């Protein structure tokens, strides 16, 4: 079985196909199963027999759900974007705890395993958020449908392709930049950095972990190449959107698929021309495709654009690289301390939340002013009638 799935191209096909199926399920039933790539993630775990990772993801999803529903949503009146980020952050944190308690539970080989490992940290939060948003049965139905349909198409296709040669491979050694023991730290850090950039500086950073992929195959050329591919995708999306009416979510899915295909083609041709950075990046099965797709999807989101995404992703990757260097050089305590310093950047974003809270309370109290129970919406009422 493993021989069949050695070729990264098959997994790239699976990724694009799963997003296509997710598009169909959303369009037909208006259901999502934990973001656009979760169905593909589950399908890869099933097809490669990574049952312990799957089980771990399920467990973390359930705990995340309990934490988010039982605590976060009860205490805080937060906008959806905050709730989404908190959900993903809690999921990543719990995954890190699980990875510390049961180290071998993520046991995929590289380089495919890297994207899946990164995904394992993010996916539980994505699913938990969608469960909160649309319900448990609906989310499970969507996730089940996308995974099952993807597998039903991919497995026969894989078997049909089995007899063919794999295609030329790039003759460069694979080097994993982020050490395995620092992956939990890196994922948690990149989510926090993304939150700081988004909520305090209004920048986008290529989904939650786009910058992580950039750091993993780190080189300025790689970043520019991914950026160029994302920009190409964005231009193509503008052309497509002139002809085809797409809802925001549909747009995100199409951008993800198109970005992945542009990255795939770009890596192939650049490798064919013998460009070493592309050959190195091409060794990663899914990371460059996801990085491009996530950046392209972010460029088209409301409140975002090409510049904010470029700047946000670049800054996020840079800060993460510095944090990883500090952690690798000075130890985990220094890394955690540095991360805490970075997270202070969230303070402006947190302070900005107060204005709508105040406005909401004041607008509610306007009724009491109109009824004569209060003299101004800023005051408190003790429930007693106003003085005559």
């Amino acid at each position, binding site marked *: 079985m493993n021989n069949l799935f050695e070729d990264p191209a098959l997994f790239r096909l699976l990724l694009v196909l799963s997003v296509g199926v997710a598009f169909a399920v959303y369009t037909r039933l208006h259901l999502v199963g934990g973001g656009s790539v979760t169905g593909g993630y589950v399908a890869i775990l099933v097809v490669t027999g990574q049952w312990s990772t799957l089980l771990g993801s399920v467990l973390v999803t359930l705990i995340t759900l309990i934490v988010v529903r039982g605590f976060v949503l009860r205490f805080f009146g937060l906008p959806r974007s905050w709730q989404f980020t908190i959900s993903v952050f809690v999921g990543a944190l719990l995954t890190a705890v699980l990875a510390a308690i049961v180290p071998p539970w993520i046991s995929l080989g590289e380089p495919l395993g890297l994207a899946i490992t990164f995904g394992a940290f993010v996916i539980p939060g994505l699913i938990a958020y969608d469960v909160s948003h649309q319900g448990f049965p609906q989310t499970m139905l969507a996730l089940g449908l996308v995974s099952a349909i993807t597998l039903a198409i991919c497995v026969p296709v894989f078997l049909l392709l089995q007899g063919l*040669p794999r*295609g030329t491979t790039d003759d460069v050694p694979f080097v994993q930049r982020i050490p395995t023991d620092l992956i939990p730290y890196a994922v948690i850090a990149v989510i926090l950095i993304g939150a700081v950039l988004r909520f305090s500086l209004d920048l986008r950073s290529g989904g939650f972990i786009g910058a992580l992929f950039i750091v993993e195959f780190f080189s300025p050329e790689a970043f520019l190449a991914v950026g160029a591919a994302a920009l190409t995708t964005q231009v193509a999306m503008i052309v497509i959107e002139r002809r085809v009416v797409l809802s925001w979510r549909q747009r995100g899915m199409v951008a993800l*698929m198109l970005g992945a295909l542009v990255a795939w083609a770009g890596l192939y041709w650049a490798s064919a021309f013998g460009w070493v950075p592309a050959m190195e990046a091409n060794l990663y099965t899914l990371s460059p495709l996801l990085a491009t797709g996530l950046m392209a999807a972010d460029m088209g989101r409301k409140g975002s654009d090409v510049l904010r995404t470029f700047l946000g992703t670049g800054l996020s990757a840079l800060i993460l690289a510095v944090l990883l260097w500090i952690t690798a050089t000075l130890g985990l305590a220094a890394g955690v301390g540095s991360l805490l310093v970075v997270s202070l950047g969230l303070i402006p974003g947190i302070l900005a939340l107060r204005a709508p809270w105040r*406005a909401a309370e004041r*607008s509610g109290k306007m009724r009491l002013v109109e009824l004569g129970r209060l003299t101004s919406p800023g005051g408190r009422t003790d429930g007693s009638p106003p003085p005559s």
Partner: protein
Amino acid sequence: MGDAWEALRTHVRDDLLTQQSLSAVLATTTLIAVLVVWYVWSTRALRALRAIPLRVLVTGTRGKSSTVRLIHGALHAGGIPAIAKMTGTASRELDTQGHEYSTNRVGQVSILEVLETVHRNLKRSGPPPKAVVLECMAVTPDLIEFVSRRIVRPDVVVITNALWDHLEEEGTSLGEIAISLSLALPGAHLLVTSEHRVGTLSILRYEAALQDVDVDAVSGRTLPANVLAAAPNAHPDNLAMAIAVAEYAGVEPATALAGIASASKEPLPVVAAASVIDGITWTYRDIGSVNDTDSLTPALLDARAQMPEGAVVLGMLVTRWDRPLRAMQFAASVTPEDVDGLVIVGEPDVLVRHVARRSGWTDDRIARVSIWGFGQRPIFRRLADMATHIAGETPENIGIIAMENNHQYVADLVREKFYGSGVL
């Protein structure tokens, strides 16, 4: 250069029929297939929608669904076959013969439902539509503009009013809310509104002028008594807007009024229902369709008037985690002068309790009801205990007024007890 070119040719030749090339082809085919299928489907719906001569898009804070029904009734009576879609409390569709259908929702609310409505109507019998009346499903400004500009391209935009709701998306001042709603205007010929506030009406007029859209600002207060008597359950402002749209469509006011009088009604009952549970008579009234605190006072007074004499009346705040600002608004707005006790269902309950305390509530008159967790007692027993605490003895009558939102799992259970499961 020659070597590189030769290497490239070798690379390509070697990859012509491989797992890699065929996977790439299949992946590209997937994307093309997705886009082509969606393009064909959506274009068919869009063409059908835009082939309808009169397109009316109804947006605003309050009264959208009712207004859609009234406009549909008026046009129908005037001999203009119309289809309509409501999305508020319950998602429903009306065909050109006036038949009502429930929109079967499996997943989330989506603007794609507009296209689906048109598609479904293509399969229904009856005369082809000459008008379509759509409740705008979007609340975020970008999406309002998208629905209007890319999907509906309305001739008439109805902005019922601009009140304090959807603060998360539309803005935290009435001016911002009015500007957000006016993003539905581009391309329209007429704006009909019943907004009363001078400031917000001025903003709507200004935005309409920028888009070269005529404004018909109407008010239910100016309608004569005989007109109001024709549809006693309809809000006068909604009535005035429906008559204005019908007039634009060339329907005589008297004919329009006759259609409005026989227009379909919102599914949620406007009268209280009663049930006896454990020897206590419970009376329930749902005003959860009132999502803004501007409109709360008349709805609350009406609901209280339907409660039995001497009943302990509990206000049930049906809060939604994705609408925290609305939750804070209602918690700040409902005081012990409105109801005897406060029941919180949904999230963010801790925050709501905190705001409610600032509005004069004490902890012994606030209860949070959930069906989650260990050792939960039945909902009505918990509420009866609080009512007993408030009254000092077990009351004979307890009233529940559900407000803020309609849907939440506890609120749905309570409603089902009185109205049955099929009402919404």
